[in-house]
């Protein structure tokens, strides 16, 4: 780890001011990606701005239409929340399958979305459910949020405050894990929302993306067989030691089918 400044802030505004001024400063939420990268000397922030003592950034609210999760809410809280389990069980299950117990006890939803790791789970959930990312400056639809590899729509001095998930009729998330890292090689989140079906894939591309052909097929019939023979082109998919692009493309179809199976059960 390189030497760095550590700053504990009391408000989102204070944090935003620091990072707007210093492009090498980094916001610390749960630290499950940032601290690991710093320990490996892969990240060299000038300053680490800890959001941990800002009041009101954490917590879960459920009303008739939405599940609203504060940016600093830990994965374990979402996984264990009776409200989330009732409203969007697929989201609770997704959170309960992130990383390991230690990661889930520290990692946060805001941190995960802002980091936008290509194999993270939450981006699939946010995109699959058509969530809205609420920042200190504006509201961003999930469809507009994930821009590329570790790249999001977040601008200079912009910090996530909460994420609003519309409650679907039914949904499910299926993940095929990298045997080593246990990150998603392919994770598929399917949702039957009030306004059509959504299929979001993580792990397979530079960032989470939707599969229009599957959504269309599911819109006419929300059943496993609707997606079972829809293949996704392998062009542009990630390709590495663990899974070449053709294998990932194949797994998208299998995981989508299994996710729909689970959603209709």
């Amino acid at each position, binding site marked *: *780890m*390189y*030497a760095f400044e550590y700053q504990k802030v009391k408000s989102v505004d204070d944090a935003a001011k620091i990072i707007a001024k210093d492009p090498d400063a980094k916001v610390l939420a749960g630290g499950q990606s940032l601290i690991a990268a710093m320990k*490996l*000397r892969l990240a060299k922030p000038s300053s680490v701005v800890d959001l941990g003592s800002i009041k009101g950034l954490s917590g879960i609210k459920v009303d008739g239409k939405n599940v609203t999760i504060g940016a600093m809410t830990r994965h374990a809280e979402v996984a264990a929340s009776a409200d989330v389990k009732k409203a969007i069980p697929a989201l609770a299950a997704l959170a309960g399958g992130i990383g390991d117990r230690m990661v889930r006890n520290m990692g946060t939803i805001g941190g995960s979305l802002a980091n936008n790791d290509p194999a993270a789970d939450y981006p699939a959930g946010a995109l699959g459910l058509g969530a809205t990312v609420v920042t200190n400056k504006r509201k961003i639809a999930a469809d507009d949020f994930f821009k590329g590899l570790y790249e999001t729509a977040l601008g200079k001095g912009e910090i996530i405050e909460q994420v609003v998930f519309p409650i679907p009729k039914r949904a499910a998330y299926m993940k*095929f894990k990298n*045997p*080593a*890292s246990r*990150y998603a090689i392919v994770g598929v989140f399917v949702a039957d929302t009030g306004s059509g079906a959504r299929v979001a894939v993580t792990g397979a591309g530079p960032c989470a993306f939707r599969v229009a052909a599957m959504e269309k097929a599911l819109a006419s019939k929300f059943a496993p067989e609707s997606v079972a023979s829809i293949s996704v082109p392998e062009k542009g998919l990630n390709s590495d*030691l*663990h*899974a*070449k692009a053709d*294998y990932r493309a*194949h*797994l998208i179809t*299998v995981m989508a089918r299994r996710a729909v199976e689970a959603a209709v059960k």
Partner: protein
Amino acid sequence: MSATTYIGAAIKRKEDYRFLTGAGNYTDDVAMPHQTYACFVRSPHAHAKIRAINKDKALKAPGVVAVFTGDDLAAAKVNGLPCGWLITDVNGQPMKEPPHPCLAQGKARYVGDHVAIVIAESVQQARDAAELVKVDYQELPAVVRAGDARKKGAPVVHDQAPDNTCYVWGLGDKAAVDKAFAGAAHLTTLEFINNRLVPNAIEPRAANASYSRADDSYTLYVANQNPHVERLLMTAFVLGLPEHKVRVVAPDVGGGFGSKIYLYAEDVVCTWASKQINRPVKWTAERSESFTSDAHGRDHVTKAELAMDKDGKFLAMRVTTTANMGAYLSTFASCIPTILYATLLAGQYTTPVIYCEVTAVFTNTAPVDAYRGAGRPEATYVVERLVETAAREMKLNPAEIRRRNFIKTFPYQTPVALLYDTGNYEATLGEALKVADVAGFPARKAEAAKRGKLRGLGFACYIEACGIAPSNVAGALGARAGLFEAGEVRVHPTGKVTVFTGSHAHGQGHETTFAQVVADRLGIPIEDVDIVHGDTSKILFGMGTYGSRSIAVGGTAIVKALDKVVAKGKKIAAHLMEAAEADIEFRDGAFVVKGTDKKKAFAEVSLAAYVPHNYPLDKLEPGLNENAFYDPANFTFPAGSHICEVEVDPDTGNVRIVNFTAIDDFGKIINPMIVEGQVHGGLTQGIGQALTEGCHYDAESGQLVTGSYLDYCLPRADDVPAFKVGTKETPCTHNPLGVKGCGEAGAIGAPAAVMNALTDALGTPDIEMPATPQRIWRACRDMKRAA
């Protein structure tokens, strides 16, 4: 518990309290006054000329005490690291032994090669300054795969070996094998890769060296499996220091699996540097360094052929292997794919003639050496994959083909040098068939098929040669060291006992099992016995722990010393009870005059030995303290039968081990609970090799792709089933405890059993290890396409 029934009892480990409560004392825990910290500058390139090293900036960085490079070591006449085993090639020539400098000289030969050491007041300062050491590299093309090393135009790793060949070595009667193949009714041929593995001990390597100006001596704390060997190699071959002026301590060591047997460059450099700066130098590897610079394991490319008659009786075996040595010869690298590999190719069978040829090659990868099993998993993989494939090809039941070929009478001389003293292969196989419910397999397979899943069953009947080794045999085969073990039993005046052993424990539980042996033999409570190991200033001598040798060789040395204690005790007791020495017997912790009720407790005799008022001082020295060195008469031959059952999801390539049965013959068992733990660990590592672990270097750049747990997949608890394990005992015939050793068996048998099960499930002749979901999915897809 009666004191004489400690052997065979599942006693909880004495070590557990300190290990489980954080009270252990590992090398990194050792803090010396005026401590400094080292960071090694390592090559980022697989192969590069070092044109210049500029250390000016680093030397000026905050907290930096010193920076040394290969030039400094050369100027100080520090030698390179030695290889402890000389292999003589097929033409009678010695193997090629290019220099292995402790800090690179002129060239870096693998990613992670040690180029310079930076010593500072803190770890952070050392790391920061290490980034300021400017090494001017000229990158060279690299070769990383064993199969590519001898190709025309391959980059040359060492000028001393222009064809990258360390040796071509052979064992067995080639002409007889060729003749038998010519007349065979059936041939089975397989070509496969035995995948390279990274050892991954939980405690990374570490060293903390200090120099004392007062008496010109050194103390090295080091995470190592054999401190005396470390000291001998370092003083006599590398640093040229007087052996008696160097103390090496291997305190608590968190796992080794072979990777801590060796003398490493970091140990030498820290020791040397401690005198240069007259301050202690500590280095603890980061996990990333462990991946790049610990000695790796396996990495063979093999063609194997088995010749049979029409009934499946084995006539001959022919094996050709290329073994990757990595960039330099590690301490025992040369003997692993030869002496510990080809000699095991008879397996449990009467194959009358065998020929094995091994070509060892240099590549731009980390050195490769012994890793749990060391040659024997590779041999078992060859034999058991061949046998199972032969059974399938000849439509024979896999148990039946093995039974037709089992060795049934002992002692048995194999055609590949070993003399098996005892065994009962039918007993372990028969039990395994029952425990694994092989009879019920077809029904389970049919049920799985209904769910769209593929089930497969695989066997592995392995043998290993442990308790290495008779020194004269090892010497004749090229060993540059003896392979005995030493033990000392120090009986205190009150009858309490401290035992000093040359074996070293780094997770094996010797403090418990060895104490069980001592307590059992002396008839005293186990609480009265302490086992001490791992310090050259305390232990007589030691050849250390590897090759499942500790109980068979180290344990026997202790027994020999105990025998001397009892013999002397009898003399003292005879004097005390005014009886003839011949009339004294020792039983249940007391010296008894035969046929009378006259006796002296062990502690009464020990007290007399140290307070010799009524004592035969004219005939006997006072004190009760005995040493023994034990050199085994033969190897021991643990053997067993493993049966694995897998279920494959053809849609994803996911595989689950649904059943794993291991019935082993380890000879006499001292502590069944510890043995079971060893088997579980070994099986898990074997399953890791088969399904998850693959060390992968990029063929072009020579970069280590699997350099962290993100990409290198160690098996986890949910990757393995609840093992069904059991034992059958045929006691070893040539050591007094009848023990054979159990540390490596799981890792030896499991890969072949898993891969036999997997190929059975898929109906494919072979699939490369590690059989990851991607590889399995591709195999399923290809099978579907072919159909």
